């Protein structure tokens, strides 16, 4: 087998037992790896509560991970989200995926519930479950520092205090600065009493055609170098994703005051250039990536990604750059998803009128993660996410979320493909399932009319399939601002030795998305959940003289969603259909006795 190792490592933290499962060539070709493999292992346990020992936490690499494929050092973390109840997953950088592959595994499937906080240490064929009691309660930088003392090489993943204290949007951090941030996957680890994972591999990933891989790699790098968004003067390589800040505000789609407005007047002084001037950031990146979009300040703190940068300013009414910087750092240290944290704060601000002074913001973040400090009680409430908080206050409409996952920093009134993508995402409020910003804002592969639903249903379906394949190969989604499955199919063929076209990979992507639809349907998700908060259909955004931002036209949205259902092979209620599942070679749940 080339590309894949052919082995899945299973660890039961209840007993400390580990074992091996074979990865068949047939399954590997069907779901590729990464997100596809995560969904496969979740398939039989999708309805289990998040604290059930049998619910798996899956960390899966892809066939390209650990090879010379561009930006393919990532892996994918999958389970059922304690925040949403839907499929919960996140692509994460660092070197965890590459080390897992080099240790000889395509995926790590973790089950069980340890009696005490524990860690999993993997050194090639040696696997052991360790006592991690001494790491509890520590901020994540201290956790990583202590772990590094005993494991100076290889990759490390760890949770923060948020995962220990029941916060539903707790994260799993990798190699200190990379985060599986969304959906509360850190809490799934926390509920298993799993504190950390250390992986070191001494092997190599076998590549079928190294020369072919080099040619295909050059094609992708050439495209990346031609991409203004990735490698241009204002692109991610120079400013990280903070590059998006000015553009999103200029397009009048910066979520402001809990999405009540779409323009933030002080934005000009809080942009990527201002951060660069003040914090003199160092450039960092993931294993195998030349874009290197991570930024660390000179004092070692992570600079906020665009979403945190925007949400910790415009969304919560904060004009202080240092507060955004500190809030983001708190999230990293405590193991909080900054998007869900900020949206929940904004929800609280709108409901109560709490003006969120700087100390208050930090106290609430501390409270969310630890249940301690000057805002402990309210923090614990907010740590359950905006949906539960808003409902408890009798204002459910003020949770700016989809399927319970808080929305990132792009207002859907400014891009209708984005509106549809948010609504139908199997994960909930994320732009990363279909990344419509690519054509609606960044003009790639060509520009589309962002204030129109015309053609968007098929575009979103196609993009979802493409990015599901990317998450499964694995390859960074940002590279798809330049390259496409056409180029990655050549990489895949060179790595695995299996001839494949873009269409073959897109079909695998379609299967992966549909599998998630099947899992969600079993948890009660249907068309009523494929929707946006009502505000976006009734309130206008912040128009400028040349950019009117009206409410999203409801009828057009519903028509586009219905078209999406037809194209995706779902019924009118957004539910999977047996014939589509059969076409995609997916088992029908009622036939398998899955839990």
């Amino acid at each position, binding site marked *: 087998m080339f590309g894949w190792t052919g082995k899945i490592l299973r660890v039961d933290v209840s007993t400390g037992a580990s074992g091996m499962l074979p990865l068949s060539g047939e399954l590997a070709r069907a779901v590729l790896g990464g997100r596809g493999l995560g969904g496969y292992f979740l398939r039989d346990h999708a309805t289990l509560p998040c604290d059930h020992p049998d619910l798996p936490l899956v960390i899966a690499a892809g066939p390209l991970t650990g090879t010379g494929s561009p930006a393919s050092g990532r892996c994918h973390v999958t389970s059922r989200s304690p925040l949403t109840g839907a499929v919960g997953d996140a692509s994460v950088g660092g070197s965890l995926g590459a080390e897992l592959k080099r240790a000889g595994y395509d995926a790590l499937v973790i089950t069980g519930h340890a009696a005490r906080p524990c860690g999993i240490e993997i050194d090639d064929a040696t696997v052991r479950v360790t006592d991690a009691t001494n790491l509890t309660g520590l901020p994540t930088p201290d956790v990583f520092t202590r772990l590094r003392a005993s494991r100076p090489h290889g990759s490390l993943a760890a949770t923060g205090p948020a995962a220990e204290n029941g916060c539903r949007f707790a994260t799993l951090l990798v190699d200190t600065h990379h985060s599986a941030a969304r959906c509360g996957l850190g809490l799934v680890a926390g509920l298993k009493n799993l504190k950390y994972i250390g992986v070191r591999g001494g092997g190599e990933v076998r590549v079928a055609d190294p020369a072919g891989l080099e040619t295909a790699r050059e094609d992708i790098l*050439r495209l990346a*170098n*031609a991409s*203004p968004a990735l490698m241009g003067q*204002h692109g991610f*390589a120079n400013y990280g994703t903070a590059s998006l800040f000015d553009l999103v505000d200029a397009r009048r789609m910066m979520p402001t005051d809990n999405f009540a407005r779409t323009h933030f007047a002080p934005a000009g002084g809080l*942009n990527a250039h201002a951060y660069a001037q003040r914090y003199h950031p160092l450039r960092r990146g993931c294993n195998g990536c030349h874009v290197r979009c991570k930024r660390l300040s000179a004092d070692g703190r992570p600079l906020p990604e665009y979403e945190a940068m925007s949400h910790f300013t415009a969304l919560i009414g904060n004009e202080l750059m240092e507060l955004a910087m500190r809030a983001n750092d708190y999230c990293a240290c405590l193991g909080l998803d900054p998007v869900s944290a900020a949206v929940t704060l904004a929800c609280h601000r709108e409901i109560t009128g709490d003006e969120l002074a700087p100390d208050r913001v930090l106290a609430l973040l501390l409270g969310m993660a630890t249940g301690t400090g000057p805002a402990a009680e309210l923090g614990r409430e907010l740590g359950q996410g905006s949906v539960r908080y808003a409902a408890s206050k009798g204002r459910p409409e003020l949770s700016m979320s989809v399927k319970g996952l808080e929305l990132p920093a792009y207002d859907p009134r400014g891009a209708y493909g984005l509106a549809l993508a948010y609504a139908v995402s199997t994960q909930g409020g994320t732009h990363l399932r279909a990344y419509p910003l690519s054509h609606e804002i960044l003009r*790639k592969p*060509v520009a589309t009319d962002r204030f129109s639903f*015309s053609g968007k249903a098929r575009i979103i379906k196609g993009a979802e399939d493409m990015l599901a394949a990317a998450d499964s190969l694995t390859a960074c989604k940002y590279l798809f601002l330049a390259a496409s499955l056409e180029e990655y199919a050549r990489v895949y063929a060179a790595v695995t030795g299996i001839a494949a076209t873009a269409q073959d990979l897109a079909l695998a992507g379609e299967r992966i998305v549909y599998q998630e639809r099947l899992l969600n349907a079993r948890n009660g998700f249907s068309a009523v959940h494929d929707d946006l908060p009502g505000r976006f259909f009734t309130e206008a955004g912040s128009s400028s003289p040349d950019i009117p931002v009206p409410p999203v036209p409801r009828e057009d949205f519903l028509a586009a969603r219905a078209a999406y259902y037809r194209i995706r092979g779902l019924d009118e209620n957004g539910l999977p259909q047996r014939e589509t599942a059969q076409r995609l070679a997916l088992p029908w749940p009622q036939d398998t006795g899955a839990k």
Partner: protein
Amino acid sequence: MTGPARQLTKYAAKLADAGLCAPGEPLLAALDAELSFSHAGDPRQPLAEEVIQGLGASALLLARPLGVCQAAMLALAREALATGVGSVTPGDCETRTFLHDLPVVDGLNAAGVIDALTRRKGCIILEDGRALIAAAGSVSPEQPFVTASSMAFACFVAYFAQHLRAVRTQTMTAARRAEFAAMRALLDQELARLPQAMPNLIPGPFADEDQARAAMTQAGRRVVEYGLVDSSFGNVSCRQMTPAGELLLISQTGSSLDELGGCIDPCRMDGASCAGLTASSELTAHRAIYDGEQTSATVRTILHGHPRFAVILSLDCQRLDCERQGQCHRACAMPRNVNDLHAGPDIPIVPGEVGTGPFGLCNTLPPAMQGKRGVIVYGHGLFTTGTSDFREAFATLLEVEHFCRAEYFRRVAELDR
């Protein structure tokens, strides 16, 4: 007319306006929930439907090129099939970067077209002794339009470049010579319909940002009208002082040069904003020219087109035994100029790939531009500058292309005696 229908007719018309196809001939299809076509009654519709459904694509184009493009594409495709290669690989930068190669399908059949288009963005179909372009897109009809336009340009350049190479390597055949003579006659007909005299362009210095934008829009349109670029290529910029500070106004990435209204990004010269994230991929090179030691004080405008013979001539090299063959686009170390062999404008030819990166033209173009009024990037296109407005830059673009065309045929005639 609905949004998709408007797009379909728009891009069909643009292919005809560019002289690439007969009016009404290109068939464009768009598939959202329903399938729609650019025009009714086309016998290719059933095949187009089968292909677009088979691919799961959003858009498809079938178009039969005219004139020189038809002849060049046909010759290249036939050769690809005859030699068993099965695809055409032109050496221009658009192909190298975005298309990679052009598969050839023998006969118009849905299975063959689907097979080719699952591998590449566009393909050439040989049918009834003619070449047909097929291209697909996942987002909108603009994608297959851009692909078709790129394919036509690439095949034109590839054919003429190969011919000059053949005469230089003395591998010319009588059949090829006859084919070339017919090709030249077609070319003369096509050139006759292009305007030759300098257009009236807005004079500088520009009073304000609005006038600078109007001048850019006008210059972009004229560059397309004069056949100095296909509409989806090229870029244009202008350095302009405004009350908010000095701006570098530049066309957006992927914008059509003949439709720049609303597609110009204002990039602050002090670098204090990233709002130009959607600016042309050549922003870095433009910026470096405006910041250059000699050019910073004088250059106010930059025009970048893809004049075909300037590109073809950049591919011509006398060093047939060069050890860097195949790497010319990024590793040519020889100082070259369009007037190397014959008196003409002083226009250097430099290597460089699109955008940034270690081999990006942002590294080679700006230094070469110092003291020059224009530079050709190998296999890519011509960049020219102006000191006040676009008249000077446009004149250089036109002059260089006219010289390169004459020089091309002079070299062919001289070498193929």
